[in-house]
C-alpha cells in the first residue's frame, strides 16, 4: 500500500468518524431532551481530528524513519565487503537502485517474485538494463544480498506501516465517536487541538534554528577531525585540492569578505543615508510617493541580477577605466572580476536597504524635537545634523550593522563578480574570494561529502552563521531599544 493510499484511507475513516459522531451526539440530545454543549459539527470534528491527526503524524514520521532504519539494518551486509576508502553513501545508492529496480521488474511482470529473489548476481545487471535501470558497476554478491535484504525489510516495513497507521486511525475515530455525548465539551476539545497546531507552527521557527545549528555543528566537528582547527582559523593559504594535501586557511576568505563588505558599505551608507534624509526631511509628498518605491525597486531585484550586472557590465567598465591599457592608463586591474566590482554592485544593492531602514528611524524621531530646533532659529540642515541625526544615531548604527550582515552573507554577487582566487591583497582591483563563494564552490563540485574539501564548507558556513548572527543580534537589540525610547 503506497503512502498516498494510506493517507486517503485515513481521511476516509476521519470523514466517517465525523458523520457518526455528529449523528450520535444529535441522537443522544434528542433522546435525553438536552441541549448539546457545542454545535453538532464540533462533535464531528472531534472524531475526525482524533482519527486523522495522530495517524497522519505517525505516517509522516514513519516515512522519514523507515529508510533510515532500513539503511542501518542493511549496511552490515555490505560492511564486510567495504574496503578502506569505500563510500557508504554510494554503495547504498547502488543497493537502493537495485532494490527499486527489482520492485519495478516484479510490478511490470518482467520478473516473477521468485525470480527476483533467485536471480544470480551476474545476471542482474542485464535484467535491470532491460527494465531501464542503469547500474554503475557489476553487481557483487554482497550488493545483491543487501538489495534483497533491503526489499525484505522495506516490504515488512510497508506492511506494518499500513496496519499500524490505519489501526491508529480506527481507534481514534472510535474514541471520538464514543465521546460524542451532549455534555462533552466538543468545542473546547477542537479548539485545544487547533491551538496545538498553532503552537507547533510557531515552534517551527525554533526547529529551523536548531536544524541549522545541528547541521553546521555535526559536519564542522567532522571536518575538524580531518583537518586541524588551528590551521583552519589561522591559515593564510587557501588551496583546496581534491587529491589531498589541501591547505584550507580561512583568513584569505575572511579578508575578501571584509574588504568587499567595506566597499559595499562605503557606497551604500552615504548614498542610502542622504537619500533617506532627503526623502524624510525635504522631499515634497509627491516626490516621496514615487521616489521611495523606485528606490525600493532596487531591493526587490534578485541578487542573481546584480551578479550578472557585476560580471558583464560593471566589471568590463571598470577594466576599461582601471585595467591595462584602460583610458586612465593605470593598469591596476587584471580582469573584470575584482573586489571593487563586487563591492560596488553590492553597495548598489544595499542602498535601498540602508535608506528604508534609516527613513523609518528618522521618521521615528519626534516632530517636537524638530520644532524645538527650528523654533530656536536653526536651519533645516542644522536641525538634521545636530538634533535629528544624533537622536537617530543608535537606530542608524543598527541599520548599518544589519546592512553589514547582509553584505557578509551575500552570495551570488561575489560568486559572479569577485573572482575565485583566494588572496590576501590590499589592491581593491584584484580578484579575491569570499566565505560564501567558497561554500558554493566546495559543495557544488563532485566532491565526496566525507572529504575535508567538502566538509570545510560547513566550517565556513558555521563561521558565517556565527558572524552574521552576532551582528544581527546586536543590531536588532539596538534598533528595538531605540524604538522603545520613542514609543
Amino acid at each position, binding site marked *: 500500500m503506497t503512502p498516498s493510499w494510506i493517507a486517503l484511507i485515513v481521511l476516509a475513516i476521519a470523514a466517517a468518524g465525523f458523520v457518526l459522531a455528529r449523528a450520535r451526539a444529535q441522537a443522544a440530545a434528542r433522546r435525553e431532551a438536552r441541549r448539546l454543549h457545542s454545535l453538532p459539527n464540533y462533535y464531528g470534528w472531534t472524531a475526525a481530528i482524533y482519527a486523522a491527526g495522530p495517524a497522519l503524524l505517525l505516517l509522516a514520521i514513519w516515512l522519514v524513519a523507515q529508510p533510515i532504519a532500513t539503511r542501518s539494518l542493511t549496511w552490515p551486509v555490505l560492511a564486510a565487503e567495504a574496503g578502506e576508502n569505500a563510500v557508504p553513501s554510494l554503495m547504498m545508492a547502488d543497493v537502493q537502485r537495485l532494490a527499486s529496480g527489482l520492485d519495478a521488474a516484479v510490478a511490470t511482470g518482467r520478473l516473477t517474485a521468485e525470480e527476483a529473489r533467485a536471480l544470480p548476481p551476474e545476471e542482474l545487471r542485464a535484467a535491470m538494463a532491460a527494465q531501464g535501470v542503469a547500474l554503475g558497476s557489476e553487481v557483487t554478491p554482497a550488493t545483491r544480498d543487501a538489495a534483497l535484504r533491503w526489499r525484505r525489510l522495506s516490504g515488512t516495513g510497508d506492511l506494518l506501516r499500513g496496519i499500524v497507521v490505519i489501526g491508529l486511525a480506527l481507534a481514534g475515530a472510535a474514541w471520538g465517536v464514543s465521546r460524542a455525548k451532549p455534555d462533552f465539551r466538543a468545542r473546547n476539545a477542537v479548539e485545544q487541538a487547533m491551538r496545538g497546531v498553532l503552537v507547533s507552527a510557531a515552534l517551527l521557527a525554533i526547529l529551523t534554528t536548531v536544524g541549522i545549528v545541528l547541521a553546521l555543528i555535526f559536519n564542522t566537528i567532522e571536518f575538524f577531525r580531518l583537518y586541524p582547527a588551528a590551521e583552519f582559523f589561522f591559515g593564510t593559504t587557501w588551496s583546496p585540492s581534491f587529491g589531498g594535501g589541501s591547505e584550507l586557511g580561512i583568513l584569505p576568505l575572511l579578508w575578501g569578505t571584509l574588504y568587499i563588505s567595506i566597499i559595499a558599505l562605503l557606497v551604500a551608507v552615504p548614498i542610502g543615508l542622504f537619500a533617506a534624509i532627503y526623502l524624510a526631511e525635504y522631499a515634497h509628498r509627491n516626490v516621496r510617493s514615487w521616489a521611495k518605491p523606485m528606490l525600493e525597486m532596487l531591493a526587490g531585484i534578485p541578487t542573481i541580477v546584480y551578479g550578472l550586472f557585476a560580471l558583464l557590465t560593471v566589471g568590463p567598465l571598470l577594466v576599461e577605466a582601471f585595467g591595462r591599457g584602460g583610458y586612465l592608463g593605470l593598469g591596476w586591474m587584471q580582469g573584470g572580476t575584482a573586489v571593487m566590482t563586487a563591492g560596488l554592485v553590492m553597495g548598489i544593492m544595499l542602498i535601498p536597504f540602508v535608506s528604508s531602514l534609516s527613513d523609518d528611524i528618522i521618521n521615528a524621531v519626534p516632530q517636537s524635537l524638530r520644532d*524645538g530646533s527650528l523654533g530656536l*532659529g536653526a536651519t533645516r540642515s542644522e536641525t538634521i545634523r*545636530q538634533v535629528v541625526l544624533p537622536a537617530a544615531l543608535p537606530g542608524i548604527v543598527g541599520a548599518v550593522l544589519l546592512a553589514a550582515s547582509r553584505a557578509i552573507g551575500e552570495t551570488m554577487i561575489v560568486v559572479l563578480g569577485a573572482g575565485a582566487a583566494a588572496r590576501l591583497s590590499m589592491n581593491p582591483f584584484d580578484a579575491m574570494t569570499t566565505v560564501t563563494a567558497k561554500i558554493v564552490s566546495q559543495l557544488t563540485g563532485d566532491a565526496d561529502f566525507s572529504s575535508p574539501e567538502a566538509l570545510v564548507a560547513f566550517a565556513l558556513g558555521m563561521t558565517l552563521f556565527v558572524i552574521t548572527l552576532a551582528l544581527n543580534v546586536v543590531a536588532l537589540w539596538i534598533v528595538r531599544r531605540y524604538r522603545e525610547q520613542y514609543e
Partner: protein
Amino acid sequence: MNDMRTMDNTVLNETKITARDVNVHYGTTHAIKGVDVDIADRTVTAFIGPSGCGKSTFLRCLNRMNDTIPGAVVTGEIKIDEADIYDSRVDPVQLRAKVGMVFQKPNPFPKSIYDNVAYGPKIHGLAKNKTELDEIVEKALRRGAIWDEVKDRLHAPGTGLSGGQQQRLCIARAVATEPEILLMDEPCSALDPIATAQVEELIDELRQNFSVVIVTHSMQQAARVSQRTAFFHLGNLVEYGETGKIFTNPEDSRTESYISGRIG
C-alpha cells in the same frame, strides 16, 4: 496679585508686533480669518479660545513656523518693529532667533543640559569662546529659574529632568539666543499643578525683558499671567483688550459665553 497687575498694566509699553488682515489656509481649510492685533512690548499677551479656534496657528505665524508645514498659506501683514516678517528679504532663520518659541510638550534634545541651552547660541554664533558660552548658558538657566536645580549636573542628559524642569529648561534654551519676543504654545498643558505654578511665576518674571505671547486653554492661567487677552473663535479674533476687562466685562456675547463656560 492679578488685580494689582492689571491695575498697573503696561499701557505705556510701545507696540512690538502689528498684525493686519492675517489669513491662514491649510489646503482648503480657512484657519485664520482676517485677524488684526497689536501686541505690546514687555507684556504678557494671552490667546484664549476653544480647541481648534486658530490661536496656536496664529501664534505660529508670528515666527513663521507655519512655513515648515506643507500646504499652509499665510496672507496679510505681520510687522515686528515695523519690519514685515513675510517680506521676501526676511530670512525665517534670522527671524526665529529674534522670536523664540516654547512648545506644548517639553522637548529637550537628547543631549546634556548644557548642550541644550548652548545649542541656540552656538548656531547663531553668539559666543566667541568657551567662557562666553558658559556665561550665556548660566545666564539663560538663571533666567529660566532652573540654575540652582541643575548647576551641579550640567552634563547630565536633559531628558532625565522632571516634566516641569524640562519645560523650564526649554524656556532657558529659548531665552539663550536673546530673543525679543517669546511665543509659548500651551506651555503648561503637559505639567502637573506644582510645575505649572513654577512656570507661571517664571513667565511673570520674563515679562521684564521680553514680549511674551502665550496660548492657553486655561482661562484661569490667562487671568493669572497675562496683562492683555485675545479671544479667538472659529478663526476670528473676537475680542482683544485688557485681561481684567475681558474677564470681568467682555463686550462680545461670544466671549462672555466662553468665559462663563457655555461654549468651548
